[in-house]
């Protein structure tokens, strides 16, 4: 009989990233919902936080996530022009462009992404999560780069 030590099995456990995804209520969240309803497969690495509009997402939220060792952050909203509150996402775009400069300085820009996803783009949502998760997997966990 071959004896397998329990702990050795644990070691080759795969790195499962923790990703936070902010979804706006009117498009992206519906998109995520559609992805679920249509049974598109995507990794279970994300935690969705629903906000009323992508304009609600403060840059400080992103930093707070990184401070608490979240490996990646996604912000999603309606396509430009589709925002339920008319221009919330334009505002978001502007402020995250500014934030990217700072993330670059910290070497964290690859761990953050801003995407537009409409209510009908369930497939795109699933793909986004898959590619982003793979990207983060390649980068490794944040707390021991």
């Amino acid at each position: 009989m071959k004896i397998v030590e329990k702990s050795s099995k644990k070691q080759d456990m795969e790195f499962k990233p923790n990703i936070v995804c902010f979804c706006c209520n009117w498009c992206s969240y519906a998109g995520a919902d559609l992805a679920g309803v249509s049974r598109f497969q995507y990794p279970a690495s994300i935690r969705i936080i629903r906000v009323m509009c992508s304009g609600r997402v403060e840059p400080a939220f992103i930093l707070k996530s990184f401070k608490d060792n979240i490996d990646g952050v996604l912000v999603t909203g309606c396509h430009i022009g589709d925002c339920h509150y008319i221009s919330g996402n334009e505002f978001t775009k502007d402020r995250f462009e500014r934030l990217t400069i700072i993330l670059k300085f910290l070497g964290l820009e690859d761990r953050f992404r801003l995407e537009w996803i409409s209510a009908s783009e369930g497939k795109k949502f699933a793909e986004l999560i898959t590619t982003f998760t793979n990207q983060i997997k390649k980068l490794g966990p944040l707390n021991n780069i």
Partner: protein
Amino acid sequence: MVIKGKLREYLNNCYQCAMCSGICQMGRIQKYTPSRIIQLIIEGFEDRIVESGMLWDCLTCNSCLEKCPHEVNFAEIVRDARNKMLDAGIMPKIAHKGFYTLLSEIMSKENITPEKTFEWVPSGCKISEEGNILYFVGCAPLFNYEFDESMNNAVDTLKILCKIENEPIVLLKDEKCCGHDLLWQGKIEAFKKLAIHNIKAFERSGASLIVTSCAEGYRTLKIDYPSMFENFNVEVKHLVEYLYEKLKENKIKFKKEKKNTKILKLTYHDPCRLSRFLPKSFNIYEKIRYIFKELEKVGYVYNEMVHNKSNSLCCGVSCWLNCTDKAKALRYHRMLEAKDVADNLITTCPKCEIHFRCLQNDTETVQDINVIDLSNLLENVIEVIPSKQNK
């Protein structure tokens, strides 16, 4: 009982004369009585003080220490207590949604190495990674995120340094935040990590002199780093000290601006970190005023505000805590004082500058005064005296 050691001694030194409560800057706008807080702590109600969260309100402006007959350092007690308050889960309200504090906290992680870019360095300035004189830029490039003019200070300081020094100035690529805000918010662990990183970086560069143009950065590098770390003994100078020495050594002078049709009326706001937070022996008040005296010779007018030097009023916020309408009231008062005597308000603390400018955005009555940093003012007027002329 949380307050021990040196701080406890401070407390026991208190006479209960209430001088501090009389002078307290926070006391001008809300009920705030440091002497009473001290008494409650001595009487054993420390937990209640910590739980009430009232220590988050202190501006840590050190006005109370200035007036205290027995040198009770209340701000330091507050700093220590804040650490305990965080442990107890009593959180402060941090301005800008905590953005800048979070940045410092992320930076304090050992595995994060920032990469500064130097595209802002003015052309003609020689910079290097190793050398004698290091310019500690500080957070200015990060403030750029919200405050468009925040880089001017760094650019002009670097211009001044390059003009005076022949050798290239050292700028660190991986310089982290000095940690001032974290320290005064009571996040001492994170502060220490930042400090260790910076001290190592300073050593690597081989610099023998660190110049900074930020009042908070100066106080932190000059006083707090050496007090916590034995092996940090690089000379640190604020731009004010640096220029004062150069003036005294006859290396520089101020030139007259030719097209100076309108006489500029100046006044100076002493930031707390570059006045009350330094030992008296630094003589910083006189050094800065010497610079203004020299400026008067070339046609500027310098007027003192009603509250000046160690009496100077607070800009209303320190370490990003509690920027409320109360803080704005303090700021408003300060700006009115400045407006009475001058049309240019000079300061040496980038944060004071940001705070004053911010108030100008929403209050018309103070819009006509120009808030600038000392480096912005001096960049154009400094002239280097060639060394041959000296002999």
